[in-house]
């Protein structure tokens, strides 16, 4: 940029001459190694590998798109917004649960194949698509909606900034299942409610406008509830929204204890 500092930058980047200003986006070859499963053809899962040229600005999702659109249209995965909001494309990338749309290829080790697998612990339907029903069943059971029996006020139900702050972290959840499917306790038998359900219970338990905290604490005091958490922090590491999941679970544990005492 120092060489062009005397030239006024145009109002629109489109007006920039090629090769001026922005600089080249580096490109590199990557090997994408994807776990494939199609029960219509084989009960056995297999690995497929493609070597493709990608750019420094590309994400794992872009690599998946390149394969699906240009090489193998049968590659199956979920994605919707492609910008880290909808939570559709949680996958196991290089052994860690990540959103494919938020993982930049340049942040991974491109000298080795980049492995992409479906998230663990849920029944696989095809390639990277898993059956999310058990996950949402647990979510439904913790009643993820405001319960307040007092008559509705004419305006909003008011809340102080501090009261809102209390559960701010857990409002960020996008239900991508990255946390629940990274939990070793959930992998065993899938009976555990899982971090995501507890996070969403936390969001209402600590909401001053909600009256059903006790009900939710009762649900999570189950033998498959919060007490199965072993604080391995896999969920906190997996969360693409940076929610302190393990901390939220600990707070729910504490709330159940306090209520019992």
């Amino acid at each position, binding site marked *: 940029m120092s060489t062009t500092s005397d030239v006024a930058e145009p109002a629109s980047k489109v007006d920039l001459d090629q090769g001026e200003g922005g600089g080249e986006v580096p490109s590199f070859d990557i090997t994408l190694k994807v776990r494939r499963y199609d029960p*219509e053809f084989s009960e056995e899962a297999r690995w497929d590998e493609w070597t493709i040229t990608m750019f420094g600005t590309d994400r794992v999702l872009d690599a998946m798109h390149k394969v699906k659109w240009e090489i193998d249209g049968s590659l199956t995965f979920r994605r919707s917004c492609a910008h880290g909001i909808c939570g559709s494309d949680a996958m196991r990338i290089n052994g860690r649960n990540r959103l494919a749309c938020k993982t930049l290829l340049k942040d991974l080790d491109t000298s080795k194949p980049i492995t992409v697998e479906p998230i663990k612990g849920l*029944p696989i*339907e095809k390639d990277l698509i898993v*059956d999310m*029903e*058990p996950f949402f*069943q647990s979510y439904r059971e913790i009643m993820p909606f405001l319960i307040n029996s007092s008559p509705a006020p004419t305006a909003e139900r008011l809340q102080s900034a501090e009261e809102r702050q209390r559960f701010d972290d857990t409002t960020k959840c996008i239900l991508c299942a990255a946390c629940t499917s990274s939990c*070793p*306790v959930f992998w*065993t*038998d*899938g*009976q555990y409610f899982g971090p995501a359900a507890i996070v969403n219970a936390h969001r209402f338990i600590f909401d001053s406008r909600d009256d059903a905290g006790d009900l939710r604490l009762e649900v999570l*005091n*189950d*033998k*498959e*509830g919060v*007490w*199965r958490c*072993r604080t391995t922090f896999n969920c906190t590491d997996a969360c693409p929204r940076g929610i302190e999941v393990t901390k939220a679970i600990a707070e729910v*544990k504490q709330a*159940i*204890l306090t209520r*019992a005492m």
Partner: protein
Amino acid sequence: MTTKNPEAVLPAHGIEAPRSGRIDPKYLRSGSGSGSFEMAAWLFMRISGLALIVLIFVHLWTNLMMGDGIHQIDFGFVAGKWANPVWQFWDLVMLWLAMLHGTNGMRTIIDDYAEKDRTRVALKGILFVASAVIITLGTLVIFTFEPCLMDSSGELLDSVPAFCHDVVG
């Protein structure tokens, strides 16, 4: 995938329609929650863990560091300690807490790692029986420990340790 909802199967293909609301029964919780047992177990692990740190390190210190150190430990040393009700109580609490803490920890590991119900029940069965035997035997030993055994005529047996002759004789 083990349940088949007949209405959700496309007759031409024999393939279940997606999103038909079926859930693999292995994911369905039995619903018979065991009250607050898991909470009590969780709390017990924390409290007994803290207590055990004190119990075990005082135990190690008195046995290995005080007096003649490791050279003092023999049959007589243990007998001497258990003649004192404080050490009887100390060792009893240590035995029970350590055994229950360990058993509950193993129970947790079995719950987390055993995938089949039958394996889980079998392993837990072995665990609980083993723990019960050890707790019972240990408790019995602490309270009935008798280093200086005598025969029917009141004479010390030949196999008793040397200090018995000083104590009794």
